[in-house]
């Protein structure tokens, strides 16, 4: 017996020391994650020309590269990119719209009139010879017709990565036929499959049963992210081979290609999914409910999570009513919407009795106890307060992670943006400065790149 005990202690000690060793490594890593300032930049050797025009997906793609240290030069006509004026309810600071201010991170601004000036196009061609990446959103073939498309630049700069963003892409009959159709976020949301999936079921009154849009520029964000991802993939290839390439992003692919669901469901169901309002196709409960002081999001989809939720809401075991009601004993696959809504309302009756903080605490307490109990089967009901963006900004979590940053531009003043969407121990993304004045860096760029050597 004694031997057994001693052996047990030794094992415990070895485990403890291993844990302590990994804890010290861990502490060091977290300290590095928490102090991103002044660390090396991934793309310090990369120069990007962003010629996107009246299109935020190009601007967003350029932002991602700029955050990782690329020198991004935004090219716009002397009167400024129309994107500057796209802003909710026209709210602006000295003529600059808020989305443009948000994406003005680490960027240089140069004026070149690509549409009208032959001389400016020549300057662009010279810059493009030194560029690693060009981003543009003109109609397919327009840059080519000006003599500054991929075909022409690549002759002298074979390492060039050329990203073109348009609604229907650079090839196919459709692209040719709709070559002059402009791009916008709401048409991307509609034309790539997002809008069809948000909103109330067809049985509800108009206009709530219409397809709805996401309340942010999700179409353009997905497109811009896809472009940045494709561009970075090409940068990795260029790093080993020296070769560049052309990247064609069709914004009408944005949603359907990112999630992949529309194509595969359309094929296997031979039909389209309907809109199902606040429900989810796979998981139940998985949505938001009203409570005393606002709303909570609840996810308790696995059987033991669901039972845990029902218990913490006081619906299980007291009266026996819930267990014996056949309407609640289904498999919780919400394909019979009416039935799913009965359960939805039954849950809402209970959540209305508590504040969001009370509900969050109930769920956490249950999960903590369940993890230690051999009877509860580890049920984890997850409850989170539904935040509006202004409340998100007050959350301690993001303060500690430095997810928000107050920045200041000499023209438009101070404002808050998100920064460092990922934490990296060696080469994290950073916001070094924001700026937005038209032609602000004309001199800097001409001196750096356009003077005869």
């Amino acid at each position, binding site marked *: 017996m004694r031997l057994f005990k001693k052996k047990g202690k030794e094992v415990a000690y070895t485990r403890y020391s291993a844990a302590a060793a990994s804890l010290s490594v861990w502490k060091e890593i977290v300290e590095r994650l928490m102090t991103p300032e002044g660390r090396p930049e991934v793309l310090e050797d990369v120069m990007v020309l962003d010629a996107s025009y009246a299109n935020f997906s190009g601007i967003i793609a350029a932002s991602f590269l700029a955050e990782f240290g690329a020198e991004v030069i935004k090219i716009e006509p002397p009167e400024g990119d129309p994107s500057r004026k796209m802003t909710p309810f026209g709210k602006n600071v000295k003529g600059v*719209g808020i989305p443009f201010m948000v994406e003005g991170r680490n960027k240089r601004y140069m004026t070149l009139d690509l549409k009208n000036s032959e001389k400016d196009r020549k300057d662009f061609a010279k810059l493009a010879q030194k560029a690693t990446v060009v981003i543009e959103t003109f109609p397919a073939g327009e840059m080519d017709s000006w003599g500054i498309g991929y075909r022409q630049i690549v002759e002298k700069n074979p390492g060039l990565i050329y990203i073109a963003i348009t609604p229907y892409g650079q090839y196919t009959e459709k692209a040719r036929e709709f070559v002059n159709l402009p*791009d916008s976020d*709401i048409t991307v949301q509609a034309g790539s499959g997002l809008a069809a999936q948000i909103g109330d079921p067809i049985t509800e009154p108009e206009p709530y049963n219409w397809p709805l849009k996401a309340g942010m520029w999700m179409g353009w964000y997905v497109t811009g992210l896809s472009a940045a991802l494709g561009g970075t993939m090409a940068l990795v290839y260029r790093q080993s081979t020296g070769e560049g390439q052309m990247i064609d992003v069709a914004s009408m692919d944005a949603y359907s290609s*990112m999630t992949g669901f529309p194509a595969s469901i359309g094929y296997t169901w031979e039909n389209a999914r309907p809109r199902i309002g606040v429900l989810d196709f796979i998981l139940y409960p998985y949505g938001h409910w009203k409570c005393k002081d606002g709303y909570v999001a609840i996810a308790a989809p696995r059987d033991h999570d669901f039972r845990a939720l029902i218990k913490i809401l006081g619906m299980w075991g007291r009266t026996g009513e819930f267990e014996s009601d056949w309407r609640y004993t289904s498999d919780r696959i919400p394909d019979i919407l009416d039935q799913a809504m009965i359960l939805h309302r039954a849950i809402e009756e209970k959540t209305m009795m508590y504040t969001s903080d009370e509900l969050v605490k109930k769920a956490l307490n249950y999960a903590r106890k369940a993890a230690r109990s051999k009877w509860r089967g580890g049920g984890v009901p997850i409850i989170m307060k539904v935040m509006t*963006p*202004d409340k998100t900004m007050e959350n301690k979590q993001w303060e500690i992670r430095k997810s928000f940053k107050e920045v200041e531009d000499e023209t438009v003043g101070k404002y808050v943006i998100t920064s460092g969407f*990922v934490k990296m121990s060696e080469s994290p993304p950073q916001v070094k400065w924001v700026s937005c004045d038209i032609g602000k860096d004309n001199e800097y760029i001409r001196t750096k790149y356009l003077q005869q050597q």
Partner: protein
Amino acid sequence: MEGYFSYTAELFDPSKVNEKPEVLKGIRVLDFTHVIFGPTVSRIMGNYGAEVIKLELPFYGDLWRPATYWGRYWKHSNPIWHFVTQNKYFVSVDLKRPEAQDLIYRMAKTSDVVVENFAPGTAEAWGVGYSSISKVNPNIIYLSCSTYGQYGPMRYFPGWDLLAQAASGVLSLNGYPGTDKYFKLPDYLGDFVPGNMGTLVVLMALYYRNKTGKGQYLDLSQTDSMMRSLPHFAYYSVTGETLGRTGHSDPAMIAASIFKTRDKKFLALACATERQFEGLCSAMGKEDLLRDRRFTDYLEGLKEENAEALRKIAADWVKSQDSGVIIKLANSKGFAAAEVVDDKMICYDSWRRERGSVILFNDEMYGEIALAGPSARLSKTPGRTKWLARPVGYHNRLVLKKFLGMSEEEIQELEKKKIIGTYDDKPGLKPPVYYNLDEDPIYNYGREVKEKK
């Protein structure tokens, strides 16, 4: 112009995709992920040629395997799972067992990237966290994905896409102003967007490692990722007002809304520039609006009451026209327009097939299915699909023998101890009933197989 489109048609020819080189050939990814967020990171790497070894629990497999839309299976598998986990090697190891650690470390030694999305702390507790893996492979790139991040007071809170949407503020923004009607973003977009960002940051780390030889640790939170898409924080800090929900309309662009046409279709319209607004006015036959002081300046036209008035005019016009007519006018006059498309339209759209946005993929085990093509089309190193999802443990022998040089006896020993294993007899985990695994040379790698009849 003609020359341009035949040039690009050749450059991006979808029939040549499989002949072209792969960017990430030779990169090995050790994939501890489950559900959608983490798996998307490695799936995209697999699309571009990385060797992705997906580790699952024996007999249970990934939680998401049986999670199908409305409980509908396709050939005993989950149709959307095929998109989410294509091109991977499916190895099934019981990570919690100390004997499994040796296997994991051997795999980690020859890997370039590790991706995990357990609840924070779990990977460390199981001895497969960064502190352990970086000991056997100091130059590893290790990405941890979670809902709120690896540090901060909320790090141990469990989460899904829904909770990230709630905590970031995204969930509160999709719906109607002045009502309590609002909706989450559909199809787990709170997983897919962060998942794509995950691939982006791993590529950045890879680029950095190619230059410096240094690996690193990456901490990606899906709430942080969703916050990156919101200009609402800056809007709040500048105006002191919350932006709230805006229904079918985009308050940042002129005449941007979803409307209903005469032929009962839903259509999105928008004008990104003053020029495009002229196009819309001319299409509507309302050139007088161009002299209307409320609309002559883009910023002025976005003011709430002006925008409302303009949307009313546009809605009346759209109601009187067929969708096809408006789309044609949009193309010729130059303003943005797109019909709301659903799953079926996306799956069967001829231009998406021609472009390769939707491909009919023929798989050896499952036969034909429609899959979404890559979000960005790379001319020299395009992404591609090689095989669909496989049953749990399908590649055990291939990976252990070919990559780790283990013998059949060693493998059988592991199988006996249940350290590795295959699938339980459940849909989503097992092969289709018509498929005989005994005849499959990959499943039986290094063993004799019966000839296929």
